[in-house]
């Protein structure tokens, strides 16, 4: 099989290039894209990429696989090959550190902005803050995000304004804390999101929903944030 790989080492290369590799895959097995990368790295040890758990939990190996963002470890080669060719590029829109490794700084900065932790001004109880099963259910579909950045880096609004638009991943987490019955900073959180960029740069393109490897729906969460902002202001 032919694998076309994005190669860039800023210390040596003046600009990025696509390098083709021919690789023999074991017959009768549908490998994951990450397995192919591991085989390629045996051929050429200079290939760089991030990986860790290899089972879609850590979110390290998000990359652009034949044009669609996804996790290499849980994307089967059969599903990602177009015309007998597998094209691997780094996540779009972020600065490339080397080959498939990107600088996630701006992505984490947006995550940091939404204060991704519980804020509660009431005195802490002796053991823990309790939550009814119904309230806990509201966090389903929100807390599962692994911050792989597949959604935000597939979002045109994030490409154009990565420093101002929080992006789908950050907004999913913003709603996770807005929806949490144990959080008391709802009003302050909403006030921080009311400007023309943080939330409202979302144009409902829904690339985030299409690519999320965990099957989450950031667009729906953004809709809930908009409704909360509207209710607060009218």
């Amino acid at each position, binding site marked *: 099989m032919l694998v076309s790989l994005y190669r860039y080492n800023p210390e040596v290369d003046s600009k990025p290039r696509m390098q083709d590799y021919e690789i023999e895959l074991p017959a009768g097995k549908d490998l994951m894209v990450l397995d192919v990368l591991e085989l390629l790295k045996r051929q050429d040890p200079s290939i760089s990429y991030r990986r860790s758990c290899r089972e879609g939990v850590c979110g390290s190996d998000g990359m652009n696989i034949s044009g669609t963002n996804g996790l290499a470890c849980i994307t089967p080669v059969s599903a990602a090959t177009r015309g007998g060719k597998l094209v691997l590029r780094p996540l779009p829109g972020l600065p490339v550190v080397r080959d498939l490794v990107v600088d996630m700084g701006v992505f984490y900065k947006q995550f940091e902005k939404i204060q991704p932790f519980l804020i509660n001004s009431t005195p802490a109880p002796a053991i823990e803050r309790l939550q009814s099963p119904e309230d806990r259910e509201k966090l389903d579909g929100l807390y599962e995000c692994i911050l792989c950045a597949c959604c935000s880096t597939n979002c045109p609004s994030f490409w154009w304004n990565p420093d101002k638009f929080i992006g789908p991943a950050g907004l999913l987490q913003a709603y996770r804390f807005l929806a949490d019955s144990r959080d008391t900073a709802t009003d302050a959180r909403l006030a921080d999101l009311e400007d023309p960029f*943080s939330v409202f740069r979302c144009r409902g393109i829904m690339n985030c929903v299409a690519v999320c490897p965990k099957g989450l729906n950031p667009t729906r969460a953004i809709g809930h944030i908009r409704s909360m902002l509207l209710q607060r202001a009218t």
Partner: protein
Amino acid sequence: MVTNVTSFGRSGLYDWVVQRLTAVYLAVYFVGLLGYMALSPDLDFEQWRDLFSATWMRVASLFALVALCAHAWVGLWTISTDYLTSDLLGSKASVIRFAFQSACVIVMFIYLVWGIQILWGL
């Protein structure tokens, strides 16, 4: 919070509500107008003039004109802040963006005044 002084209402929520409401109104207005044209096969100038000289139609049309300007401003401002940025255009981006936004405002204002003239037959 990201601040911006050139957006329509300085608030994303306000701009969003304005854009959505004007979109609904414009859809109703223009679909209604198209429906009227479709249901009047022998439409002539006299009938068209009578329609637009009725006060209710003038109110509806003036509102459509204002709604169009507000809707277009939110949209064009969004486009200018998406594509005319320093990431894409370098250090001159602010000047180019401001010039584009100013041109949009001037054109919209001209269309608004011109539209009122036409509507009222001034």
